[in-house]
């Protein structure tokens, strides 16, 4: 189960105890700058830095990380292909014919495709950095610090908690259905729809139980009851300064490489 491994990695990696706020600031600003850049160079830079941090600072298994990267890589390649074929009109580089239809590779299109592709992969790497080094439980306090409304955070907390309860439930139900034998494709689809509807009903039940449990502990509808944490230690100014310095340097690079293209 991939999400379970991510959760476990987030709880056990080497950067687990770094201040969540620093990690959030780093990941989010780098992501935003990457998206804003008009050249593929800053995204590539961001990707390299995020990958180094993930593999060497947090010591995360490279296999797991590259497996996670496969999805954004796939999307990046698809956008590169599509853009180079269908974007731009006055800068043909190469043309070929398939089934009496002429395809033209445009320079503009390739540049746009490269930009999109690198942005996709680099943005994902920034978010993987956050996902792999910071447990959700820590992230919630980070969100609170960023002044996200309590209602949103509390809902997210309860959702996070019950994802795992239902995951177990779904696994049990799936196993039970497998043990009684699935035969052809048709039956498989029927069984799947049955499992999905049963799971949906169980979530409603669980919701009711949750409400009773919350009431039993004097819950009166006021939010904020879940957001308990021991006093937040002050943010480490040196680290914050280092991160901000890096981000400014990164912005500088982004501005300098404006509209710079590979080809």
């Amino acid at each position, binding site marked *: 189960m991939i999400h379970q491994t991510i959760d476990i990695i987030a709880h056990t990696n080497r950067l687990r105890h770094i201040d969540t706020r620093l990690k959030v600031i780093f990941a989010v600003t780098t992501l935003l700058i990457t998206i804003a850049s008009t050249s593929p160079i800053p995204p590539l830079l961001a990707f390299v830095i995020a990958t180094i941090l993930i593999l060497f600072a947090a010591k995360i298994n490279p296999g797991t990380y590259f497996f996670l990267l496969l999805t954004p890589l796939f999307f990046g390649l698809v956008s590169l292909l599509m853009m180079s074929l269908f974007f731009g009109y006055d800068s043909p580089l190469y043309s070929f014919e398939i089934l009496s239809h002429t395809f033209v590779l445009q320079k503009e299109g390739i540049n746009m495709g490269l930009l999109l592709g690198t942005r996709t992969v680099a943005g994902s790497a920034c978010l993987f950095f956050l996902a792999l080094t910071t447990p959700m*439980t820590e992230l919630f306090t980070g969100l609170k610090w960023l002044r996200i409304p309590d209602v949103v955070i509390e809902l997210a907390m309860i959702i996070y*908690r019950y994802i795992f309860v239902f995951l*177990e439930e779904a696994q049990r139900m799936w196993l039970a259905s497998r043990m009684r034998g699935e035969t052809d494709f048709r039956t498989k689809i029927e069984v799947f729809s049955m499992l999905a509807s049963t799971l949906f009903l169980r979530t409603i039940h669980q919701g009711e*139980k949750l409400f*009773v449990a919350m009431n039993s*502990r*004097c819950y009166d509808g006021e939010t904020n009851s*879940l*957001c308990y944490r021991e006093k937040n230690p002050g943010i480490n100014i040196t680290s914050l300064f280092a991160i901000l310095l890096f981000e400014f340097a990164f912005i500088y690079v982004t501005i300098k490489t404006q509209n710079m293209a590979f080809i």
Partner: protein
Amino acid sequence: MNIIEAQNLTYKYPDGTKALDDIDFSVEKGSITAIIGQNGAGKSTLLLHLNATLRPANGAVYLENKPFAYDNKGLHLIRRKVAMVFQNPDDQLLAPTVRQDVAFGPKNLKLADAQIKQRVDEALRLVGMEAYADKPPHFLSGGQKKRVAIAGVIAMKPEIMVLDEPTAGLDPQGCTEIIDILDELNAEGKTIIFSTHDVDLAAKWANNIYVLHEGRIKRHGSPSQIFADHTMISETGLKLPGFVQTFRELKLRGISGGESPLTMLNFVESVSKPFDVLKVRCAIASTDVYSGETVGLVMKNGTLCTTRVDDDPKSVTSVFGTVIFEARAGEDIVVGEITGILSPKTGVIHIVPIPRVIEGGSRAVDLGTICRIIAGQSPDKIGAMGTSAKVVVKKAGIKCDFEVDVIQSSILAALRGLNVMVFATGGMVDRVIQKIESNNKQGGQHIKYLRVS
């Protein structure tokens, strides 16, 4: 005084079927009450009335002689005093980390942050889960989740703890740990109400038992009253505790008699009495013995063994008997026509009090002193009751013989002539003394106990 009481309580499901029918239920302050019955007998429904989650169709529930008020303020008061622990901890643990979950209740009570921190730490330490404070619940085992669920309600400092099947789905050690925690809370004065299928647990732990059958109270009373009524037990689809069944079979064969025993201790006494009268004992042969040989009997490491009369008998033992069948060394034999006082010398139970978690727990204890006490008395068996006592024993690196059923095991060991040292947390010291004294009053043999300080 009845701390909580239900009168003529009736509850109907939305479709009109009666889930509970005219229930009278009362619980004394500081007692342990068990509700036993089949699946679907209405146990959970009854428990849900006690913290005002369900409202009765007829009748009323009283908290400290005042009827429940079902408005917001009333509900808040009831739920602060009556805490509920659900059967499935996944229904109850709702926060992403253990610490946040335990803080949920105190936070709802609108306590100050410092106070919340203190209560959370205390509750987690009491259930032995402080090392897991920042873990999410899905990283924990079933027993650990249950302990966190209990910590979550302890942090609200309730007066009554209502538990739906507290031991269901737990392994034996998990069960014992949960019961141990609850026992400690009870020793501190909390009232405990629980439902269970486990008749052995109800028999040995509860002061009072209610038998629920098809939504009605079939019978209530002390464990001895309940389990003496064999027909009622089988009619309600329950079974008798293991040793009561064994006792019954022995009684039907004329081997044992008298009242139905409730604990292993009572059982052992009821079975050994006929042997005393007949002057017959089973023993282990130390050497090869022949039929009709006269042997001496001594206790060795808590087991009855033979000695040869030839080697200066008087100094070793004053108890003699005749071997009935010949046997080799190490075999079980029967010795008859026993002369001399059969009951062996009883051991002494040393009780060492350990401060409670709130009073500093294991950190307030000097481990050197503990080791010195043990070295001074050199007990044959060591037991620990309560969280901080167990932590102390573990820290001092002492091998503990009794962690389960400590009082009963200690008394049984002392009856066999072993010296026992019990480390007891806080109020549990008085409980040990109370049990030993009540046993001394009932049973024939007197056990000495000493409070070590």
